[in-house]
């Protein structure tokens, strides 16, 4: 059995396109966390974020036959699908946004302090991000929550590294204004 841990993304992708489910499993292991963070920063319910994360990778798997690299990076492909899934999530079910407070306030006595604090912080971050432009929101999530480098963020957003740095600068300024 092949040790997929040692294989780079390009080779994994190629194997996955050839139908190697285990290669795709390795890609999942590498990127599920960052996709989850990206999604959870945009929606309120962590369980929904889990479902959507799985859903994103399933869609990627199903779309692999249509994916041609041609300089279009896998990360960009992956996060494009993640973004669309978030949009579909809200649109398809016409969901009413459930803020964290809606759930944590129901029975606060049963929730440990650290989870409660995390919930409030998540709510606070959501509040800030919600008031920013889409590209500002995206660069902040990718850079500081998903912890992508400027180069990786540039790949995902389809921009140059320099443009990402400028965008990050503007987004931080805008976020600061909202926080104040």
């Amino acid at each position, binding site marked *: 059995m092949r040790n997929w841990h040692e294989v780079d993304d390009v080779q994994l992708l190629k194997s996955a396109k050839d139908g190697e489910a285990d290669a795709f499993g390795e890609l999942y292991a590498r990127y599920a966390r960052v996709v989850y963070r990206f999604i959870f920063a945009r929606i309120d319910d962590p369980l929904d974020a889990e479902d959507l994360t799985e859903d994103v990778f399933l869609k990627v798997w199903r779309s692999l036959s249509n994916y041609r690299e041609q300089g279009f990076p896998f990360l960009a492909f992956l996060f494009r699908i993640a973004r669309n899934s978030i949009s579909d999530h809200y649109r398809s079910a016409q969901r009413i946004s459930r803020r964290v407070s809606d759930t944590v306030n129901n029975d606060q006595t049963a929730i440990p302090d650290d989870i409660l604090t995390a919930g409030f*912080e998540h709510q606070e971050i959501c509040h800030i991000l919600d008031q920013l432009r889409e590209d500002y929101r995206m660069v902040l999530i990718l850079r500081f*929550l998903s912890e992508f480098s400027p180069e990786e963020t540039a790949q995902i957003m389809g921009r140059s590294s320099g443009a990402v740095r400028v965008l990050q600068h503007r987004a931080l300024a805008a976020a600061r204004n909202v926080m104040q």
Partner: protein
Amino acid sequence: MARTRDEIANLVQSCLEKIQKGEATIDSVLSDYPEIEDILRSQLETALWLNGRRQIYDPRPGFIPASRKRLMNVIENEAAGVAPVHTSWNPLANLWRKRFALQFAVALLLILSLLMGSNQAALAAKNTIPGDRFFPFKITHENAQVLLSISAENDTALHTEFTERRLAEIQGILLVGRYAMVPKAVTAYEKQVTSAITSLKKVASVNSARAGVLASQLHQVLEDGDLDLTDLSPAVPVETRKELSRVHEISSSSIHEIAMLRLVVAFVETSTPLPSPTQGLSLVMPETQAPASEVGATVNPTPSPTYTPILPTSTELTATMTATPRTTATQVVRSTNTATPVIASFPSPTSSTVLLTPTSPILPTGTLAPSNTPQSTATPLPSQTPKPTDIDVPPTQTATWTATPVGTPAPTATSPPATATQPPSPSSTPLPAGCYISGQIAEPDGVVVALQLVNSGDIPVTFTEITIHWPQPQMPPENQEFESLWRSVNLLWYEPTDKSPSTISDFMGEPALRVIQPGNQADLTFRFKRSVIGTSGYQITVEFDNGCSVTATR
């Protein structure tokens, strides 16, 4: 010394890297740049504050390996041609409950294997239709699959798959001319869809989120199947058409029932904390409404389900639903003037302009286009039959956007004008798509420009060519590049170019990705390399296989 925005942006980045690597502190880097200390401080503090909260966004422990396993299961099942199985059930409890059923199913499968000789035979039976030798094996195999299934979710997925098969079988029977077998096949379809809905209700009582997904899948299967059979209807004998009408009625009432179930599910999901499965959540559904009767051929009163949820005081949720017939207030009549485009009303107000240019004759018909103006709740009156006219009927939309027919050739002698005596066609023959297609460009956002196409006609249309104009900067350091085209998550085209306008005709992926079903919309995303310039100067023209084209501008 004044610094440029780019220099500051680069400084922020390099300072952040130093701090994150532990090579510096905020104060130490600020002391190096006293002239921009304020800007730098606020930027670094904000970035570090955000970065310090990243652990909030970590998935719960164990999620990634568990979900990876689930994903692998789904992928392997799909590769093996089995309906997706979701594993949010309690396998032990279900296994215990279905112990005897499992024993029976295993025995049955062993007998089947002996009878059929090999798995290839089972696969061969999969595509059989009533009247084929191996068709009974197919049904037995399906029954065994259901018996083996150990969760309501899986049951529903299987029943949905089998419902799709029943519809395909009816089509197959029609195509080979075994008309005598149609009534039995329709009855089988009715039983199958009833089983699917029953199973779906069980899922809804314990997992509303999953039920919503499954309901959506079943809805799609019914809608697609009904559409395919409607297309075949004109080609079959009259007696058989009656059976196809029965299929249509079964599909319509089932779709209605599913829609109501989805409403309840959405309500439960968004409005109430879910009781645990052991507490029981009962969904009280009324009997299926009879399909709305048609008035003439034109007004299709759509049952408008309204539901009155009674919030649970303890642990039970009861939702009572009533269906109110709804008439369409906006009626668009196609002119018999073959040169006149007819524009249906579309839902979303927008400032963009839509130009419809028919390049092939529009067939005369007196059928109403679907409308989105659900105002009246009164019983539809038969007197609402539209009168055809040879005068262009202006779009009756109330939205603020403008729809301007352009390029309309003047009627000629070869283009027979409509007369008042031309009766509306009251048949159930599907409308030709004509130019019942609209398009609007959403406000450009980030690096994307989104175009929404809506097919308000009665048959599927396929886009065959897209031309996009986009603005270029006045003094370009680099021209703006159009990079890729997506439909939802599907990549349709990827060949970065800075030549505006660009025409796309060599699409990627399956042709089905370019089909817009009747009453559906297609969201196309045009992705550019850099942030889109300004919010105007975009024009997108989409050509369709029926000869129509739609131009949207912003």
